[in-house]
């Protein structure tokens, strides 16, 4: 055991610090202070969506819009080229006296895969961006955290945060912005 870093499976790795706040308004104003202090790896946990919390946390635009846009383009392009390919090469068939390549007739089938791909892309993209499905999270170890789905408003600051120097400094920062029931979470 000369090298403690390479042989320390029993030493608990820290995930971060869990802090409770009294109300949605408290956690909202605390989020602004944490944002302004410059923390990056942290999160707010609430039983319901808090209006304006994205701005208070300093979250930027979601990337989901771009995922939806590219899925829509891919779906529409796929739907259109499938029909074009079928009518031009695979199975040319004269329908109702229309031209072989009758663009107006392709619009509904171009639209539908566009919508389908967008919907699927949004759901999958949302799951991936949220890191879901995730069956374990360090906050589950906290008895107090069970309130998060009822009447508890929590903030976690991860040790991975560049501003996280040590437990005591972060703890006193959280206390200074009105946190209570501060716990240290192990990974």
């Amino acid at each position, binding site marked *: 055991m000369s090298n403690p870093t390479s042989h320390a499976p029993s030493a608990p790795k820290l995930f971060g610090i869990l802090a409770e706040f009294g109300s949605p308004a408290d956690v909202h104003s605390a989020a602004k202070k944490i944002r302004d202090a410059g923390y990056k790896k942290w999160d707010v946990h609430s039983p319901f969506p808090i209006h304006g919390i994205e*701005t208070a946390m300093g979250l930027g635009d979601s990337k989901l819009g771009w995922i939806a846009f590219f899925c829509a383009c891919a779906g529409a392009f796929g739907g259109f080229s499938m029909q074009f390919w079928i009518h031009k090469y695979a199975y040319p068939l004269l329908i109702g006296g229309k031209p072989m390549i009758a663009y*107006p007739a392709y619009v509904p089938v171009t639209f539908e895969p566009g919508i389908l791909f967008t919907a699927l892309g949004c759901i999958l993209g949302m799951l991936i961006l949220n890191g879901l499905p995730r069956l374990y999270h360090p906050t589950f170890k906290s008895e107090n955290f069970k309130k998060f789905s009822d009447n508890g408003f929590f903030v976690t600051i991860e040790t991975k945060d560049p501003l996280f120097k040590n437990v005591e400094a972060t703890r006193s920062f959280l206390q200074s912005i009105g946190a209570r029931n501060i716990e240290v979470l192990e990974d």
Partner: protein
Amino acid sequence: MVEAQDILRLNEKLQKGRIYLLGAGILGAVLCAVTYFQSSRNFFASYLTAYCFFAALSLGSLFFVMVQHLARSAWSVTVRRIAETMAFNSVILAVLFIPLLFGTHDIFTWTHADIRATDHLVQIKSAYLNLPFLYIRAALYFVVWIGLSSFFLMTSRKQDQTREESLTTKMGRAAAGGMILYALSQTFFAFDWMMSLDSHWFSTMFGVYFFAGSIVATYASLIIISTVLKATGHVSKSVNVEHYHDMGKLLFGHNVFWTYIAFSQFFLIWYANIPEEVTFFEARSIGSWKIISLLLPWCHFAIPFLYLMSHNVKRNRPALTLGATWLLTMCLIDIYWIIQPNFYPAGAHFGLADIAAFVAIGGFCGFFFLRNLGQASLVATGDPRLEQCLSYDNGIPE
């Protein structure tokens, strides 16, 4: 409160602007007279085009006002007065309608005695397509439009003074019944003055098509007028980026709705390929009309669709105003494309009469609009939802 920090009365600059608009209207009217004596048929083609465009703005505004009351919407309180005033333009539109009554022979082929004597379809439709009934219907439309628009404008102005909440309830109730009257009058106006130009052709979607275009034009003009008001120093706080974002969303959404209706109308007719239906698109694929027919899906739909998609554009006042101006122009081209192929079957025609009629009707409508806008506050200050409107937030992180 909003009054303390915001200019809600038209200032000198715009008060003066209405004199220029009146001048433009008179100048346009003189030019109209000149072109009328050159060719009355060409003149009425242009006059009807310009008339339907400004009627669309007024009708779309009436719809906007009523739908805001029906939805009990709070976000729109500070821009509703603009729409109320624009809807009240139905009064000046009733006056500007008078020349059309003298142009029925030039406008409608179904009024011609020889056609009525020989054309079987016109004979079948004669219970509806006859001049006395056309005049009665037109009178009914104006009763509905003037009645509804003056009720909403006057009640809203009264609320500025009294701040009675009961007036909001009253307007909400009136909007429910008014919406049905609006839908019928707007649809049959489109049937009478646009669809019956080709007395053989019919489309059950035509009323919705005109409505869809008019509501796009209304959102576009709301954005443009708000920008003009802000650029001249008005409503700097009461109309903010959140309201622009919402107007942009609705402009975007309703433009997609227009596309859906326009395409559905085209698609069903194109696919079925029945002679009496297909004439409308056949006539619009001749000569230079084909260019406009191909331009509309790209310039009325595809380009604005991509342009207005991002919320960064909707929240940027100059960028959104540019998009709105573009779409308003497209709405005018759309109405031109509906009406004028009936007069110039060989290809698109543009002349002095088009400019004269647009300047005349636009000038008088603009004058009347600014006159009424100057008579009261620019914002419905007595509305109980005003505070909610001012603190409205789309929740977009800056």
